[in-house]
């Protein structure tokens, strides 16, 4: 049953939008961004910053676009002299007590106060130096959040997030008038598992992440879309890198998965992506030692091991590895008695109470579901037992597993653990920030992640390593050149993914047909 549509015009652009749409949202469809602060699609409407003032024909006064619903025949002008003057007035008033902190403020370059002031603010101030600006000292709100009251524009996004989305009102507005500031009770701390979102929500540099403090300038950052590897929720994130180092993780909006938010566990979970102690070249055993070699020789050595092997092959894989890699790793053992398993570190679940089906999940890995769909088992003990008598054991990016085997151990991973020194071959792979691939979240949604930085040395994506091995072994399909090809091969042959295509996944992903709960 389609929504009733309403026809209106915004800045001359005719639109047809569902009844009940807010003017500020309808404007986006006309390509118009109405300047705003307190409004956020993930929060209840407050209508208090007054920044989104627009001219609506037949209305006697300017109206706020964030709280006005579309009406049939409505004519909205965001650029009328009256509307622009009203918004310029708001900007001027926001700036009178706002310190000239841009040179030392983390938000510079991604600051909405800067942006809208540049766009339609007053070129010079009529306030300073005649009057002293309001001053309050910086406050430490808790584990990661600093509050700089001087920069606060009292949009109350943070208060509303904690109250209505996190459902833990630990922030308030204190005092009245121009003495107001964001307060926290002396017995309170901002340690909610999702509290870090207030830093993203803050339009200015008032709420800051201690982790990111003074670390990099916004304009120095490269951004890549990725998927959080912290748990099986599959929150969409953006990895910010500076000179090939991941320096920050921010949420990317996906209305089907995490809406606009990520939890603090995922937010802080990126330092491992920058570890320097990586395997940078393929290693093969010659005698009692591992020797550095090139990919060609490495593939030859591994292929020969596999050709000669009869009997059992056991694959112990990490649930943090891409679906494509897991697929080709399985293909590698066609013809052998194969068993594959994975295990997942578990933790405490921490839901975001105000959003349905969103939590830091107990399963602390991004691709357990993907592994399951590809036939990997969760019975790790059985696999470990089987490994002891297997002829080939593949250990995929699991540095902490103590494997005992009489057969050949092939280690494929990012770091070189002690026990891998027993391996016949060690193949270096890229981590999630260094390649393209997919994960399948707990709801069966297949989501793409993109490359944010380059892999060290000769490390390559795991799907490439395995697909090359398959090709070397004479597999029918030939070489796979791109992540897209890798996925499309997978979708063509695995029931759970049939019908999906890489192109179709886009930035929001798609639910694997046989796999899961339609979102």
């Amino acid at each position, binding site marked *: 049953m389609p929504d009733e549509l309403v026809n209106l015009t915004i800045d001359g652009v005719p639109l047809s939008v569902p009844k009940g749409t807010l003017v500020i949202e309808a404007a986006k469809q006309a390509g118009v961004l109405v300047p705003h602060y307190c409004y956020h699609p993930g929060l209840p409407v407050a209508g208090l910053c007054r920044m989104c003032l627009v001219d609506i024909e037949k209305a006697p006064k300017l109206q706020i676009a964030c709280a006005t619903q579309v009406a049939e025949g409505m004519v909205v002008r965001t650029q009328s002299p009256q509307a622009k003057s009203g918004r310029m007035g708001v900007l001027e008033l926001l700036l009178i007590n706002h310190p000239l902190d841009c040179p030392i403020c983390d938000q510079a370059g991604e600051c909405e106060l800067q942006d809208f002031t540049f766009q339609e603010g007053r070129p010079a101030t009529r306030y300073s130096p005649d009057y002293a600006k309001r001053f309050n*000292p*910086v*406050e*430490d*709100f808790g584990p990661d959040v*600093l509050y*700089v009251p001087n920069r606060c524009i009292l949009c109350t996004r943070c208060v509303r997030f904690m*109250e209505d989305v996190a459902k*833990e*009102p*630990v*922030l*308030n*507005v*204190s*005092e*009245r008038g121009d003495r107001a500031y964001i*307060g*926290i*009770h*002396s*017995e*309170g*701390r901002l340690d909610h598992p999702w509290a870090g979102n207030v830093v993203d929500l803050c339009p200015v540099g008032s709420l800051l992440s201690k982790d990111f403090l003074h670390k990099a300038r916004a304009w120095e950052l490269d951004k890549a879309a990725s998927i959080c590897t912290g748990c099986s929720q599959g929150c969409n994130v953006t990895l910010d890198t500076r000179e090939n180092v991941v320096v920050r993780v921010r949420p990317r909006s996906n209305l089907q998965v995490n809406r606009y938010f990520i939890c603090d566990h995922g937010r802080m979970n990126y330092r491992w992506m920058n570890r320097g102690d990586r395997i940078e070249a393929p290693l093969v055993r010659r005698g009692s030692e591992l020797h550095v070699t090139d990919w060609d020789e490495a593939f030859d050595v591994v292929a020969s091991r596999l050709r000669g092997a009869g009997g059992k092959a056991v694959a112990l894989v990490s649930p943090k590895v891409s679906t494509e890699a897991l697929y080709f790793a399985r293909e590698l053992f066609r013809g052998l008695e194969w068993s594959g398993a994975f295990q997942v570190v578990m933790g405490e679940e921490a839901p975001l109470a105000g959003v349905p089906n969103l939590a830091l999940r107990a399963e602390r890995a991004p691709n357990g579901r993907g592994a399951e769909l590809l036939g990997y088992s969760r019975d790790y003990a059985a696999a470990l037992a089987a490994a002891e008598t297997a002829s080939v054991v593949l250990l995929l990016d699991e540095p902490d597993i103590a494997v005992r085997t009489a057969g050949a151990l092939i280690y494929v991973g990012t770091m070189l653990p002690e026990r891998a020194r027993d391996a016949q071959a060690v193949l270096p792979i890229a981590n999630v920030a260094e390649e393209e691939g997919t994960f399948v979240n707990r709801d069966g949604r297949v989501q793409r992640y993109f490359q944010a930085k380059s892999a060290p040395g000769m490390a390559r994506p795991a799907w490439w390593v395995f697909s090359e091995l398959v090709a070397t072994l004479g597999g029918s399909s030939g070489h796979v050149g791109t992540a897209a090809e890798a996925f499309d091969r997978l979708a063509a042959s695995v029931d759970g993914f049939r019908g999906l295509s890489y192109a179709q996944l886009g930035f929001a992903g798609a639910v694997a047909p046989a796999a899961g709960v339609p979102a």
Partner: protein
Amino acid sequence: MSVSTHPTPQPGTEEYEPVFVGKTLEQLSEILTRYPTRQAALLPALWLVQEARGWISDRNMAEVGEVLGLTPAYVKGVVTFYTMYHQHPVGRHFVQVCTTSPCNICGAEAVVKALLDATGAKELGATSPDGKWTVIEVECLGACGFATPVLVNDDFIESVTPDKVAELVKRYK
């Protein structure tokens, strides 16, 4: 950047004496029957605390929160909004003098000065050395025709002029 940190909560050195016990709790229970939500009893509950203790501490706010199912931060946000709630101890006699324009043009500022002198409080908002008096200026008290009105705790005294101040102060022990 200088940073002020919130004190990490420590076990209280003195035992906290709850406000909502006995008769006060009974009063609150009766008040709760007047509203469909517990939250609506917040302003009345805060008045009960101030009547009992003379002011509302952070710990009191936490207790009110527990009793009504609200976070301490939420309660604090409400307390700091309403200027009649004291967030720190004040003199035994809390004096509020209206100085908004209608009283202002009838000499309210002179009344303030006279009170600051007569009580020994000397400065607005300060408590006199003997702990008896705190004097503040407030906005319109709704008695403009009887300038200048003065509230001493709950006593609403009309038509105060500087010459009546000495006598007024004497009335309070």
